[in-house]
C-alpha cells in the first residue's frame, strides 16, 4: 500500500502533455468536418426530379433578367439576375426550405435576392407541389458553369444548417457561348408569386 502523496514524475508529465498535444493535432489537422458534417449531395440538372428524402425537388427553368418587375417595384440588377424556377414537394411533414445559393466555377457563392418579388426560401407540406422563384444577382463571369444549391437547411456559417442532410446541387447547364448570349440579352422578368404549379389536365376547380 502506498502512503503519502504521489510524486509528479517526468514520465507522467510527458504522458499527459503528449496526449493533449496529440488530441489537439488530431482535431486540428484531420478533415473532421468533411467526414462528420458533410451533407449528402444529390446532383442533377434542369428538369430532373431529385429525391432529397424530405422532399422532391425539380428545377424547372432557368432565365436571366436585367430587370425584375413586381407590383411593388422594378429592380435593376448590378450584374444580371439569374432567375431559377423550382418546384418543391414535401414528403414527410410541413417543411421550410431555407437554403438557396448559386455557386460559380470559381467557387464564389451568391445568395438569393428578395427584390422584384423573388423568394429567398419556401415552405410546403406533403400532398402538393409548390412553385418558387429564386433570383440571384451575379456578375458576367459567374454565368458559365453555374450551379444552384437548394436544401431545407440554410447555407449560413459555411452551410452549417445542411450538415448530415440531403442537399440538391443542380447544374444550370450554361456554357461559355450561352453565357455571352445571356449577358447581352436585355430581358425583363416578372417572377410569379409562390403557389401551386400551373394546372394541367389533372386539376379540377371547385
Amino acid at each position, binding site marked *: *500500500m502506498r502512503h503519502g502523496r504521489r510524486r509528479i514524475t517526468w514520465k507522467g508529465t510527458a504522458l499527459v502533455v503528449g496526449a493533449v498535444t496529440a488530441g489537439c493535432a488530431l482535431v486540428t489537422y484531420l478533415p473532421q468536418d468533411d467526414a462528420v458534417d458533410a451533407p449528402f449531395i444529390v446532383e442533377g440538372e434542369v428538369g430532373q426530379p431529385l429525391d432529397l428524402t424530405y422532399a422532391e425537388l425539380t428545377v424547372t427553368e432557368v432565365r436571366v433578367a436585367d430587370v425584375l418587375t413586381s407590383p411593388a417595384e422594378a429592380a435593376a440588377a448590378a450584374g444580371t439576375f439569374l432567375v431559377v424556377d423550382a418546384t418543391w414537394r414535401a*414528403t*414527410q*411533414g*410541413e417543411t421550410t426550405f431555407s437554403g438557396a445559393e448559386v455557386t460559380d466555377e470559381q467557387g464564389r457563392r451568391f445568395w438569393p435576392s428578395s427584390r422584384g418579388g423573388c423568394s429567398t426560401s419556401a415552405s410546403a*407540406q*406533403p*400532398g*402538393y*407541389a409548390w412553385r418558387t422563384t429564386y433570383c440571384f444577382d451575379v456578375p458576367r463571369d459567374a454565368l458559365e458553369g453555374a450551379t444552384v444549391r437548394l436544401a431545407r437547411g440554410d447555407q449560413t456559417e459555411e452551410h452549417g444548417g445542411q450538415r448530415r442532410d440531403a442537399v440538391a446541387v443542380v447544374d444550370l447547364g450554361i456554357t461559355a457561348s450561352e453565357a455571352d448570349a445571356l449577358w447581352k440579352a436585355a430581358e425583363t422578368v416578372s417572377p410569379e408569386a409562390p403557389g*401551386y*404549379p*400551373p*394546372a*394541367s*389536365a*389533372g*386539376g*379540377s*376547380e*371547385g
Partner: protein
Amino acid sequence: MTTLVTPAVPGPGRGTPPGAAPSLQPGMLPGSVPPDLPAPARRRGWWRRNIVWLVLLPIAVAAAAGASSFRVWAYWWPVGLHHEVDRVSVGEPAHMAAEYYDLGLSVPERANTTVLREIDATVTGIEQVERLPPPLYSDPVAIPDGSVAYEVQVHFAAEPQTDVALCQIILVAEDGARYGESNTDLLGGPNRCLPPDAEGSLSEQPEWDVSSFLLADPDAEITQVRLGFGGPEYVTVDLP
C-alpha cells in the same frame, strides 16, 4: 607494533568490491546482521482503488446529460405533437385535457396564466372529394394537379370560450407522411377547429361541427387522423 587497518566502507553505487560476499548489502560491514524488512503488502487492484470514482461516474454522466438536455424540453417538446393523450376510432369521442400558457391574445384576463383546455373531439367522417367548396371570403380554390383532397368532419364539445388557437387536423399515411400539418386552412379560414364564419379562436357553443379540407398525395394510404393545438399533446383517431 601491529596496525589494524579497517577496510573502507563501500559507498552506494560503487558496486560490490571484489572479494566481498555477494549477499552483503551496500553500506553494511561484513558480519552485520541486516534488519528485518517488512514484507511488502499486496497492492490493491485498479478497480478497488478507484471504486469511489467508478460509482460516481455514471451519476456524473447522468447529471451532465440532464443539465445539457434543457433544449429538449425548452425547444423541442413544446413545439410539435409528441404526447398522445387519447386514441380512439372513428365515431368515438376523444378527450383531450392539456394545459397551455395563455398570452391573453383572445381573453385579456387569461394573460400570462396557465390554462387547462378540455375538449372532446369526434371524427365523424373522412372522405376524398372531387371539388373544394367555395371559400367564404376568397376566390375558388382548385385541387392542384397531382393532388387529391380530403374532407375531415369533426364534432367538438367544450365549454364556450375555449381557446382553440393553433388547431391542427392532420392525416397520417401509412408511410408516416403527415398531411395538413399547418394550422392554416386550405380554403383560407382563420381556424380549422371553428366554423368558417367564426371570428377569433374562441368557441361560442357547447357543441359544434366543422369540415376541414386538406391535400394529400394520390397514392397515400391514410391510416390516422391526429388532432392537436400545436402540441405537445394530441389525440389519435384510427381509421378502419
